[in-house]
């Protein structure tokens, strides 16, 4: 039995790209339905628990590909529920990147300056705040002190975290139990619902087809405990479809739709970027931390890897626009819980084999509280390509939750490898100085490279050959289909991308409103921030006059 329904606008996914567009469209008067493949988990269901089946396996999606594995959100709120809430704006030079194409990757209409008002709208809505040294955890402080000792700068990271509520429990990858992390569950999504938007969790969109006046979205209903099991299917007809299923899923949905939609732009499922991400683990000598850096607290010199709230300190010395492309990167102190954060870590200085298991690795684990994980975000070469789609979803699911095998292939080019090598060398230079620590990058041999920030698999641009979307985020040749998630970002950003994905979604809304109006939907643009604040709206309004309301 197939359920049938309709809406003005159907939004696929409830992360930044989906929640922001859904809020504005619902507030503007459209009937909006959002489909989310994952569960809708409330704050008091966010467990401090590693047990399989607790919130951290329910709300995550870990898809292993060939040469690249992708960690993403899988719940109402998407990436915002599982992310670390580090929210820097992208430095200006990134918008001028050319990659290997020999032309600007970003649309000419987008620069840091033109994106600034949209960043401001997001900053006001979540909100995002600049942190100070009193917010910086022991691990962040250790990284900052090591950077300073090596003659580098280090910044407290801007974050969407309510410091008064945060307990520094470091369980934020399982969802924030204390509502300190400003996920979309606390702003855009409840505001969208208040304006009549409907969120349907455990609905996995498989493909789109055409109707006389729009599109039909085909979904399956996913079992709430075993995501390999489906329980029924249905369709929803809509005049406008906003795809925001994440960069690991949006291109797969489109690939599966190609037979019915007709020829897709060649860039769908190509030019995937892992945001140039790479991880290093340092194991610190507590005595040297005290002697060389002069750090100590009531529990020791450092010995506090478990304490904190993800990344707090970031080093931006190599975000220098005068350096050659592919050699610019952020180094950010990070926390991954045991499991995710321990298995791929290699034994520093072992030299021999094996590097990631065995007696020496066990000894390394005994020093886990003295670990510091450093996260590189560099400029990769958009070398990821999606193969033929799996039968359903974005992966062949292996475990009941979280783990699957996908079709992404990623063979890092010499450009990407050069950036990673430069970043690894910089991490070593900073952290091994004067015997502070021993450092080794994570192995790429087991699950390939590893990204928590998939991007660019269905990107905006000015060149139809290399961008699937125009600069209004509309799928070329398929009017009424918009893509507003990380797949729309043209390439690696050298910083955490959530803020930019969100700002681009804010920027895309006026164009979607205009398209909906053209399709006969009674909808306007101009909602304030989800809590009613209007200052950022006032700044952005002049920018949309040409985009909405004229016709």
């Amino acid at each position, binding site marked *: 039995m197939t359920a049938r329904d309709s809406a003005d606008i159907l939004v696929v996914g409830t992360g930044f790209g989906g929640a922001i567009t859904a809020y504005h469209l619902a507030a503007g008067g459209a009937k909006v339905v959002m489909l989310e493949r994952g569960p809708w988990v409330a704050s008091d269901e966010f467990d401090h628990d590693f047990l*399989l089946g607790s919130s951290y396996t329910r709300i995550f999606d870990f898809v292993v590909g060939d040469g690249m594995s992708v960690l993403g959100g899988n719940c109402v709120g998407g990436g915002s529920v599982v992310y670390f809430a580090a929210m820097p704006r992208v430095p200006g030079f990134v918008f001028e990147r050319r990659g290997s194409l020999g032309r600007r990757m970003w649309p000419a209409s987008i620069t840091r300056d033109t994106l600034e008002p949209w960043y401001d709208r997001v900053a006001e809505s979540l909100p995002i705040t600049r942190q100070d040294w009193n917010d910086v955890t022991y691990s962040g402080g250790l990284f900052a002190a090591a950077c300073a000792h090596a003659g580098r700068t280090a910044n407290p990271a801007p974050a969407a975290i309510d410091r008064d509520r945060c307990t520094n429990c470091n369980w934020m990858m399982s969802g924030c139990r204390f509502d300190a992390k400003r996920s979309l569950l606390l702003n855009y999504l409840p505001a969208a619902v208040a304006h009549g938007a409907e969120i349907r969790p455990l609905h996995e969109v498989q493909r789109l087809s055409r109707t006389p006046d729009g599109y039909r979205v085909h979904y399956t209903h996913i079992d709430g405990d075993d995501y390999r099991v489906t329980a029924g299917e249905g369709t929803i007809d809509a005049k406008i479809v906003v795809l925001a299923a994440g960069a690991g899923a949006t291109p797969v949905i489109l690939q599966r739709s190609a037979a019915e939609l007709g020829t897709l732009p060649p860039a769908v499922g190509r030019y995937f970027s892992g945001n140039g991400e790479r991880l290093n683990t340092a194991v610190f000598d507590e005595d040297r931390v005290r002697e060389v850096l002069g750090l100590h607290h009531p529990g020791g010199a450092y010995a506090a890897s478990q304490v904190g709230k993800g990344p707090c300190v970031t080093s931006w010395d190599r975000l220098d626009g005068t350096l050659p492309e592919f050699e610019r990167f952020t180094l950010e102190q990070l926390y991954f819980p045991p499991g995710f954060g321990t298995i791929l870590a290699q034994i520093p200085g072992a030299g021999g084999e094996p590097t990631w298991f*065995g007696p020496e690795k066990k000894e390394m684990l005994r020093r886990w509280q003295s670990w510091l994980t450093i996260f590189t975000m560099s400029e990769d070469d958009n070398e990821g390509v999606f193969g033929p789609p799996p039968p359903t979803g974005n992966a062949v699911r292996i475990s009941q939750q979280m783990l699957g095998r996908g079709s992404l292939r990623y063979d890092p080019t010499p450009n990407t490898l050069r950036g990673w090598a430069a970043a690894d060398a910089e991490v070593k230079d900073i952290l091994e100085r004067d015997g502070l620590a021993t450092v080794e990058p994570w192995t790429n041999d087991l699950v390939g490279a590893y990204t928590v920030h998939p991007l660019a698999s269905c990107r905006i641009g000015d060149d139809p050959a290399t961008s699937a979307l125009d600069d209004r985020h509309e799928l070329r040749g398929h009017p009424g289909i918009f893509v507003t998630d990380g797949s729309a970002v043209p390439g690696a950003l050298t910083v955490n991308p959530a803020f930019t994905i969100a700002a681009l979604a804010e920027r895309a809304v006026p164009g979607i409103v205009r398209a909906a109006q053209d399709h006969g939907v009674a909808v306007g643009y101009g909602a304030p921030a989800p809590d009613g604040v209007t200052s950022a709206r006032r700044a952005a309004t002049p920018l949309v006059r040409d985009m909405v309301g004229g016709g």
Partner: protein
Amino acid sequence: METESPTGAAGRTPTLEAFADTIVPGEKRGPDDRAVAGAAPGPGAVAAGAIALLEMPATGIADALDDYAAALDRHAREHADRRGLDLDGSVPPFVALPFAERTAVVRALTAPDHPEKDLWVLLALFSNMAFDTAAHMHTTEAVEQGHPGLVALGFAPPDDDGLWRFPRFSYRRELASVHPDTDATGSLT
């Protein structure tokens, strides 16, 4: 993957234990322990509950464990043949291998060019998780019971309500100069 091994779960267990023990090695549980090689002091993945974790339906491989054990023993026998090693026939072939040879087999099976790599990496990941996260137990209970992996990591206990809070978390002082191009929002220009 519903193949039933002639020996059943009890027969496969020593082989799977020997695999988990190669990933996170531990001390022998007693003088007659053959599966655990005794290659490292203190409890390892087996004592941490690797078999209990592998047998959870949530992993998605519980129904394939007989096949895993049979395949691992086949690889062990082939490895022994190549190396000219005599195996004690009273235990499964992988269990009969000395620790260094078990390690060599696991390295080969998880190497990037091995055709079965995905399967063996998966088994290694779950073996690791039994030690690093006790993913077969509620973490509060694992901490309370002194789970050997969480103890080895020095994983701090929760508050009385089962939630973690760290009221002391910061050195609370400026520890570096910020980048000169930092703007008012805290980002780079």
